[in-house]
């Protein structure tokens, strides 16, 4: 464990060192490629005056609400499309089609429908999450060996109980991978929306990034990118990784 930590730390320290050396070599203008030190300085300053914290809070709040809504809508719809042919032929095909649409394409629509508002943001995030979640859930439920629900039925399980105690847990590995994918889509669509849409009700990380470009503040651009990466990593490591480890122990395979 310690050697793994050590190897990982060494790798990232080396990466920063390489960055530092490239800046030192002055191949590119420091306006285009700021030094690690100046990025760190920006992050420190932004953390102290509270802009970073505020932007992170605004972004994470949008993300959680949008992603949560996406799950609340997507999971049940996926269960529906998996269990009823007519749902599969309607909602399922709709989901398949809309899932192929890059979520940034929803931005103009959201702006016209909702104006410069939080609702526009949420709309984009939900649209980015919900379709892939429907498809992942549908696939997950369809791949469950039918013997599970047959065995459950002989033991007296019916209707809702079969759903909550057999079908959903049996599909869990697939639901998790669907949720992970949904998370990635939500995160991407939110960033796209925040970069393109200036919304007065809150100033998120995407907007911070956008203004970094406007002001030609490269240290801000790279600093914010780093923050976005770190949030993505933190969510993966704190939310998904433990669930995956549990599943690996239980199922014996890292399915999905």
């Amino acid at each position, binding site marked *: 464990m310690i050697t793994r930590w050590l190897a990982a730390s060494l790798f990232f320290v080396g990466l920063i060192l390489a960055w530092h050396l490239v800046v030192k070599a002055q191949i590119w203008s420091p306006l285009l490629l700021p030094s690690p030190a100046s990025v760190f300085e920006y992050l420190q300053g932004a953390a102290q005056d509270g802009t970073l914290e505020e932007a992170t809070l605004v972004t994470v709040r949008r993300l959680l609400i949008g992603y949560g809504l996406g799950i609340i809508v997507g999971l049940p719809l996926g269960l529906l499309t998996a269990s009823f042919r007519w749902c599969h032929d309607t909602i399922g095909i709709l989901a398949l089609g809309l899932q192929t649409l890059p979520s940034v394409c929803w931005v103009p629509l959201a702006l016209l429908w909702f104006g410069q508002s939080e609702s526009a943001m949420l709309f984009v995030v939900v649209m980015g999450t919900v379709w892939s979640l429907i498809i992942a859930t549908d696939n997950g439920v369809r791949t469950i060996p039918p013997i599970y629900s047959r065995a459950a039925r002989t033991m*007296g399980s019916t209707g809702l109980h079969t759903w909550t105690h057999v079908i959903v847990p049996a599909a869990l590995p697939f639901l998790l991978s669907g949720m992970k994918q949904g998370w990635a889509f939500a995160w991407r669509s939110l960033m796209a929306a925040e970069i393109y849409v200036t919304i007065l009700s809150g100033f998120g990380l995407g907007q911070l990034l956008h203004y970094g470009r406007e002001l030609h503040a490269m240290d801000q651009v790279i600093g914010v990118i780093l923050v976005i990466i770190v949030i993505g990593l933190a969510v993966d490591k704190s939310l998904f990784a433990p669930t995956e480890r549990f599943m690996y122990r239980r199922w*014996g395979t890292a399915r999905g």
Partner: protein
Amino acid sequence: MLTIDHPPAPSQAAKLVLNHVSKWFQTSSLHVHALDDVTLRIAEGEFVCLVGPSGCGKSTLLNIIAGLDHADSGTVQADGKPIDEPGPHRLMMFQESALFPWLTVLGNVLFGLKLSNRLSAAERREKAEYFLELVGLKRFMHSNVHELSGGMKQRVALARALAPNPSVLLMDEPFGALDALTREQLYGDIQRIWSQHRKTILFVTHNVREAVCLGDRVILFSPHPGRIREEFAIPLPRARDINSVDLARYATEITRVLKGYVESEVAG
């Protein structure tokens, strides 16, 4: 091996009664006559084995008795009442282990208990542990399903099927995927458990020796359409050893009859 007294003769009350049961399956290209006019009476506490080549409708018959499937004609009754849905008095044990991988061994055994009984959590737990002990796996109760061998999985499946105290146990080639040595152990276990708990067991297999080793009666099925051809009483004392000469004699005779049906079928 435990020595077991010859079990008391089963009472004459009919537990399961099938009258002229027929079943067809319609697939896109075929119209399959799965069961043809099957009539069968199984007494309370009896151990009956259904033998036949694969595809002869044995499993279909078991599914109908379990209530997972319906007969197209004829009647199926348990305790004098028609069977139209699965019930906790008739539990089924499947060919491949149908254990739930998202639950531990204990969780699997508790699954049926939670559904069928109005027991307190402590009583359920006690019962589950008792049946795991009975199949010799109590110390694995907190294990995950994938950590068990094939034979252990089927033992857990047996404990799970026994725990809600069904009166009928339907077993669909439960030992088919196991190696010979593990199977022999399980023959001993199942006979011991049957003699202790007196369930009515309907056991489907294509292994004639297995059928003779376990059954009070062996019922011979032939395919296309699936129908009962012959019935053999096996009066051998219990517990039976699958390797005994007497048992082999019965098995040889039944195999010879079975081959006759299969060959006449091939000849048309």
